[in-house]
């Protein structure tokens, strides 16, 4: 009965209801939008960092991560690769054999990180081909290297020059060979530019006298949020005595820490936004009550109990809040996807700065549905809490005064 009255009340003054609903609606929308942008920035940061080199998930021989050297590599097998590729959410699997090696022209030598790669697959994860600034990218079967531009510059090397790679191979064997430089890659990080030397994985295995051995399988997964799940899945399928599975959070704890610290700051921003939208809802609700003072006065005067009235009002508010939140969430979904597909552009000036880091100067929003649910629930609870005060005013209404006003 009271329920019906509340429902009817809502539609008696549609405009008022819509306005109140709108304030809830906008609150949800704003909160979702802000969170989506925040998380989108992190997504992008992680994606950029992960795509720089590591990939989202890696499999190594157990113990490799703590002691990264050639004897701690594992023997590649088609079954292993198959297991990884069959894993749901895994998009690309690429083999790597890496080892610190000295590169030398004879008189001039430096340290480098030699990485044996599968050129085509590697490109799918780290977009290495796109980083070529001079010469050409590697192809399978090449007996050639691609080096960082910084390395080439420091050693005064040009395309086609040969470079000696020298280091310790499998089981302490002395490994060396010389390769022509086929291409040069440029990373945003000067560190990587000065350090990286790529060659096809088969050649690297031959060089290090470690046929069929790999230091890692790097994997790209569909999103950063599933990487933990992929690790769990793989850990259950692979022999834990032989292999270790790690995702970016484990491999790059500092990035994770940075994001967490930034997120803490983001929470303060969110808190401020909540105050603001909370007050918007509060204002609208308060005005709604004060506007209906006369009406309430009359109802009390004709014998309706205040508690009944409060119940009606609460029902009305719940309706409004739920509908506003639902509407906000529904509208937020396409908005999230729209700004994900058409990211906010930071303009040309920023583009230049970012370009040198191989980052696009855009902020795509996150499409994580949990943001919508979290924010919708949060705003709903907040709305209902805010309503307490206006409703409490109801109990202070004196019918005579109210009707006179």
């Amino acid at each position, binding site marked *: 009965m009271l329920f019906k009255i509340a429902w009817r009340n809502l539609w008696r*003054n549609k*405009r*008022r209801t819509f*306005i*109140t609903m*709108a*304030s809830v609606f*906008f*609150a949800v929308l*704003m909160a979702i*939008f*802000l969170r989506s*942008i*925040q998380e989108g*920035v992190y997504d992008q940061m992680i994606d950029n960092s992960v795509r720089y080199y590591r990939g989202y998930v890696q499999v190594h021989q157990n113990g490799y991560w703590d002691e990264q050297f050639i004897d701690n590599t594992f023997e590649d097998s088609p079954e292993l690769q198959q297991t990884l590729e069959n894993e749901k959410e895994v998009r690309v699997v690429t083999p790597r054999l890496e080892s610190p090696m000295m590169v030398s*022209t*004879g*008189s001039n030598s*430096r*340290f480098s990180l030699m990485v044996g790669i599968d050129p085509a697959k590697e490109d799918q994860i780290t977009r290495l081909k796109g980083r070529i600034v001079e010469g050409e990218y590697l192809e399978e079967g090449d007996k050639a290297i691609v080096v960082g531009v910084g390395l080439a510059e*420091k050693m*005064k*090397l*040009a395309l086609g*020059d040969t470079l000696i790679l020298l280091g310790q191979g499998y089981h302490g064997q002395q490994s060396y060979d010389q390769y022509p430089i086929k291409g040069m890659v440029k990373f*945003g*990080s000067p560190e990587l530019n*000065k350090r990286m030397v790529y060659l096809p994985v088969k050649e690297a295995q031959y060089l290090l006298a470690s046929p069929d051995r790999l230091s890692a399988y790097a994997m790209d997964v569909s999103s950063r949020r599933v990487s933990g799940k992929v690790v769990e899945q793989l850990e259950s399928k692979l022999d834990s005595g032989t292999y270790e599975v790690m995702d970016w959070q484990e491999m790059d704890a*500092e990035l994770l*820490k*940075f994001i*967490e*610290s930034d*997120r*803490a*700051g983001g*929470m*303060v*921003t969110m808190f*401020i*936004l909540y*105050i*603001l*939208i909370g*007050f*918007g809802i509060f*204002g*609208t609700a*308060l*005005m*709604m009550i*004060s*506007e209906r003072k006369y009406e309430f006065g009359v109802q009390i005067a004709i014998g309706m109990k205040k508690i009944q009235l409060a119940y009606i009002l609460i029902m009305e508010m719940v309706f409004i809040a739920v509908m506003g939140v639902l509407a906000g969430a529904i509208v937020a979904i396409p908005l999230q996807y729209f700004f994900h597909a058409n990211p906010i552009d*930071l303009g040309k000036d*920023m583009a230049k*700065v970012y370009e*040198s*880091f191989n*980052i696009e100067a855009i*902020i795509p929003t996150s499409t994580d549905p949990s943001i919508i649910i979290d924010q919708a629930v949060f705003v709903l609870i907040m709305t209902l809490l805010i309503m307490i005060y206006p409703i409490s005013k109801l109990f202070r209404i004196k019918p005579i005064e109210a009707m006179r006003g």
Partner: protein
Amino acid sequence: MLLQISWRNIWRNPLRSGLIIVAIALGIWAAVFTFAFSFGMMESRTRDILETQISHVQFHHPEFEREDPGSNFLPLSQELIEKVENDPATLTSTARYLANGILNSTKGRKGTFPVQILGIQPANEAEVTSLDNRIIAGGYFEKEGRRVPEVVIGKSLAEEIGALTYDESGKEIYDFKRKITLSNIQLPNSSSAAIRVKIGGIYKAQNSQLEKLQVFINKDDLLRKLNLGTEVHEIAALIQDGKTLSKEKKVSYQKDLQESQSTVVKQLTKKIRSQSLIFGSLPSVDEGWTAEVVINKVMSQKMQLMQDSAIRTDRTYKISGFSLNEEDEKTFTVYPTGIIDDGDVKPAVYMPKGNMLYEADLIGKPMRITKAETEKIKNIKLESEAKMVAQTVKVESWSDLAPEIEVIDNQFSSSMRIFVIIILLALGFGIVNTMLMAILERTRELGMLMSIGMNKAKVFTMIMLETVMMTFIGAPIGMALAALTISYTGQTGIDLSGLETGAEFGMSSMVYPSIPITYYGEVAVMVIIAGILAAIYPSLRAIRLKPAEAVRAI
């Protein structure tokens, strides 16, 4: 007249107007404070890195590389140190001698740790990077000139070499007596040295990698132990308003240096007797094999080396049929770095004295200089200053040294802008809603006004005026509120330690909000614009009311 009506209207319903004014004040407060908070967070993060690691401006030899400092010393280091110190813009500066080396200990995995040895001026270093404040155990270079010099090592390194252990309750126990040596210390002449050192103190850094890598030692102690003179690799300086001004200051330093250098170059070039450099530079080192030579004009013509403008430094040349000790003929590869006019009519190659003739391998496609052409190869002892002034000093601002910080900085300010826009949007919607409510409530009153002949333009203006006036009341309140909160929290700080802040990796969990003063104005203008824009829709709604219906409405 309309102004008066509007003003009176505002105060006729204090609740309604109060809500709007508070909303506006809150909006301004929110926008300003959010910005100040994030700005403070960003600033302190950047400042941490600048004032503990990279400083605002650094000076190096143009070929200097941190991973391999070698003999790339700063030219005229003493003069340069003084020059930087005395520059009015410099707040404080410090010089460093850098070398790669290996820290040896009997404990820990394999007992050897590749480290970067930083020979520092302890007092200056304390001012520039607050190294002394980051000492968590032991002391900070309390005595100079010890027989066994003290080093300050990072906490993580101390753990690795067993100088830091933990008892059962997790309490840290430091062992300052642990024997360590620094070996393989790269010397300028490409040989190396080893010295025994003792742990004087333990420092904490931004991340554990730095802690493992950097070992600090008094520069004078280090140079004395290595039998070196006064060479330095690096000068780091903090300057006034360094975060914002470092780029401009860098240019002025550069100009300054070039001017003072060119005069020295002129003087010294004359010193090299009649052999004046007419192009390029002199060989960089006069000790050890560098394969760098200068050639005379006749030779350069023979080799067709100088094509009006550029020496092909990317090419190497092979000299053959030449012998130093009359024993056997040697063939070796050289890099010409410059051309001198020695007044000779025969081709000649000059190389720095002391170059031993080890054969260097070939790079690229060498040009052969036959015996007939190398009729004369001279050794020249270059004055040590001469080799230095031929090069310039590389000045770098912090954004050159750590471009990633600037990117993060930029990313921050652009996302900040978006946040502020969202806050303004939220504020705008708040105002629209409240005003719409107000119009709704005032339907009767507005209908009355219109039916007694107030035209639509006037009603519109009246409502706009009301909003603008309320904005003008709310804005200063909000700003005052923001200023108060910022100055309060800016003093006490906001502790985020309850949240995951990454404090372990050196970031402070305290945030001190701060804001550039101009920002108040910017935000105020934006909020006022937002307020006015937000008022348009309700005002339009108001004039769309039909007087007759409006009056009838409850």
